[in-house]
């Protein structure tokens, strides 16, 4: 699909087709991106965005189709040819050597000869030029692990530009950034565009698409379903194109009806494995029938707080009470018996065993329960039947309890976790990043379930780095910064107020 454009095209994809076994990841994709523009690609998880970009960057080969870069057909065999053709990629998870300096990371793979000295001098000069041209300020001698996430991302962009990238692909670039850092990134991207670079932005955040792109393409189930000029479309239209039906963008919920305190945290201090204090003397309560959200930029202690409440991490000091009973130091199995359910932040490493079949994951943590088999044995028939009921109730697709969990899309994987934790009818639910990497349809579904839990009189503690999510779900919002709860606001608090608190500027 293409829009008539006066500018010459930087990228033309013609009839790109790619299958993985039975999965048709890309179906006859046609896409033209004009030089000097910012083009957004949105789509649900599993829609084929990442596959398409991987083909463009040489990780995969298309079964059919042609790629033209600046009008010339190119056979992109691997990432080296992609780089040589002027394509640069900024991955969602940074590909940086943590204990190298910025300069060393930028040079990596382009050292220029056996001895470093000459390469270092050229790199330093080039970095200075890139900084002047595009406003990408980073100290070349800073060590990566000491830089904030936003700066690390700038290093990734610098790396691509250093290798002569004319076309930049950014994969979900704002997932780890604060609102302020995201704004800065967008400023940089606009400068790059104005200097003639072409930028492809992959994201699932509709707001970003509206804020920064010139044109936008929507992918659904491996197909490119629409391309629009951003100025001529709306968030609602894009959402509908992504999902294939009308979606609710705002969560509908009534007022909270808080009851007795179900979770009580008193003076809790948690240290990480290196002994650094991550949660610093935190106290709060969560009542039955309310959702308490914890807002904060990733890495300010929310993860450790959740893990301490869930019994995975031992608190250094302080107390936790679940329904009045002391719960600090009890292991996760014991806490489940007390009525605590936990949807963890990281479903890949905690919530699921990806190599297991779906039904095996549907009992994780509850596998000792007698309903899944008497005594020491597992009753596979009962487990599978139970899993199939959850699959039907939560519309998990494909509806196959024998499929390996890794083969489900992100949204469906998350539904497996949500189904497992909610269907146990716990007294309270703690949730980390309920919709990270989850498509819009599933987000809507999961948000509804969370509100239902609240309305059924459960206590819900929610941690999310998505401020929108916190604001739309929470009845009360606590803001964490540097391990401390720096303030409490009602669910109606404005984004700016919370943003300043998250940055540690206001209380």
């Amino acid at each position: 699909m293409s829009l008539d454009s006066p500018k010459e095209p930087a990228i033309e994809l013609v009839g790109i087709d790619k299958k993985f076994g039975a999965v048709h990841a890309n179906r006859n994709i046609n896409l033209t991106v004009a030089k000097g523009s910012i083009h957004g690609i949105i789509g649900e998880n599993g829609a084929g965005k990442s596959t398409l970009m991987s083909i463009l960057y040489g990780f995969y080969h298309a079964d059919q189709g042609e790629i033209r870069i600046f009008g010339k057909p190119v056979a992109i065999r691997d990432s080296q040819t992609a780089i040589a053709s002027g394509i640069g990629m900024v991955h969602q998870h940074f590909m940086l050597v943590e204990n190298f300096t910025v300069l060393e990371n930028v040079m990596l793979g382009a050292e220029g000869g056996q001895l470093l000295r000459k390469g270092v001098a050229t790199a330093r000069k080039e970095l200075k030029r890139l900084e002047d041209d595009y406003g990408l300020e980073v100290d070349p001698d800073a060590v990566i692990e000491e830089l904030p996430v936003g700066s690390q991302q700038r290093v990734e962009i610098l790396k691509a530009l250093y290798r002569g990238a004319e076309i930049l692909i950014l994969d979900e670039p704002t997932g780890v950034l604060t609102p302020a850092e995201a704004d800065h990134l967008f400023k940089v991207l606009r400068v790059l565009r104005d200097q003639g670079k072409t930028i492809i932005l992959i994201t699932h955040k509709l707001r970003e698409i509206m804020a920064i792109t010139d044109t936008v393409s929507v992918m659904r189930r491996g197909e490119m379903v629409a391309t629009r000029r951003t100025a001529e479309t709306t968030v609602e239209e894009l959402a509908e194109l992504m999902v294939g039906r009308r979606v609710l963008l705002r969560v509908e919920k009534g007022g909270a009806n808080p009851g007795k305190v179900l979770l009580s945290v008193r003076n809790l201090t948690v240290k990480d494995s290196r002994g650094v204090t991550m949660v610093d003397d935190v106290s709060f309560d969560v009542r039955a029938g309310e959702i308490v959200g914890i807002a904060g930029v990733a890495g300010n202690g929310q993860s450790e707080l959740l893990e301490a409440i869930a019994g995975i991490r031992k608190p250094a000091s302080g107390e936790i009470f679940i329904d009045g009973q002391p719960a600090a130091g009890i292991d996760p199995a014991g806490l489940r018996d007390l009525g605590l359910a936990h949807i963890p932040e990281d479903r890949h490493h905690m919530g699921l065993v990806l190599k297991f079949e779906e039904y095996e994951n549907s009992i994780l943590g509850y596998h000792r329960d007698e309903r899944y088999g008497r005594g020491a044995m597992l009753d596979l028939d009962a487990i599978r039947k139970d899993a199939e009921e959850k699959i039907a109730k939560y519309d998990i697709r494909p509806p196959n309890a024998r499929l390996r969990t890794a083969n489900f899309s992100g949204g469906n994987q998350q539904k497996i976790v949500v189904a497992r934790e909610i269907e146990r009818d716990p007294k309270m639910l703690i949730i980390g990043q309920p919709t990270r990497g989850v498509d819009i349809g599933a987000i809507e579904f999961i948000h509804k379930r969370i509100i239902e839990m609240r309305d059924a009189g459960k206590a819900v503690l929610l941690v999310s780095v998505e401020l929108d999510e916190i604001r739309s779900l929470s009845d009360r919002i606590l803001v964490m910064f540097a391990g401390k709860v720096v303030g409490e606001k009602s669910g109606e608090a404005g984004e700016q107020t919370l943003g300043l608190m998250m940055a540690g500027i206001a209380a």
Partner: protein
Amino acid sequence: MSTASVSLPAWINYGVIPLLNLVLAFFFSGLVVWAIGENPFEALQLLLIGALGRGEGIGFTLFYTTSFIFTGLSVAVAIHAGLFNIGSEGQAYLGGLGAALVALSLDHYVPWYVTMPFAVIGAALFGAACAAIPAWLQAKRGSHIVITTIMFNFIVSSLMNYVLVRLLIVPGKMAPETRTFLEGGQLPKLDWLIALFGGRLGAAPLNFSFLIALLMCFLVWVLIWRTKLGYEMRTLGISPSAASYAGIRYAKIVMITMLISGGLAGMMALNPVMGASARLQIEFVGGAGFVGIAVSLMGRNHPAGIILAALLFGILYQGGAELSFDMPRITRDMIVVIQGMVILFAGALEYMLRPAIVRLYQQVTGK
């Protein structure tokens, strides 16, 4: 392009790929045989006939197979919980002491079938005891199990030297070994099993422990795939972080898994000690513990695969011995080279052919 994530049908994964690996191993072994001036085809023929040609050969083959099944299971159980137990050799050796002590104490008084259950327990307990300290060090202190189990092989070896030379040796004899067990301390030969197929067992030491090994295969399968404990072991083995989320206690599972693993290795001793030589001899394990690693790897850590892989190594051991007898230029060391080739291609280079097979499969099926 990455082919690692493409899933292949089971008959390719568990049939075609191991078979091709095996063919490659034999091809390169053949080259070696040819290089020293023997006819590789003749050698292969001699090897197969030696291992499978007569009842006695089969008896020896299955005797070796029995030992490899035990040690293979031992390694596999540990691997399912993410633990690499290199100590099956030492655990089997100490297991021999357990079996021998039971046999020495009971053989005067009761028939073999009364001794046997106690001997199984004794062998398993001693094997488990040998695994317990490395397991505890891993669970509580984080000392790497690979290192500690290797070191325990040496510790057990020295300990057994001491026990046999100083304590259990028959007074007045030179050989560091116990007295010969009476019939009450021996496991009966399986003549009838070979007779079923019309062969004669002859001098081959195939004995009742073969049936115990098969039973253990079944029990291990039940443990890993049908019990809550096995579920916890597999969860820990694949994803320690998911295990901690699920409230599965790391230290507990590590301890239990290693005790089971050590116990299975210990039971291997039943075969040579009570089945074959009817006495505890020095160094009777003879590397079966290490072969168990290859067997488990090649058998994909599944009891059914372990039986097949153990059989293959049984054939190599027995056929190899016959081969070195018939072809003087092929020495015992040459047989080790051939076994090494099999381990190399079937174990270490397991995934070498996979990408090519995946592409071929995709072309053929048009996916």
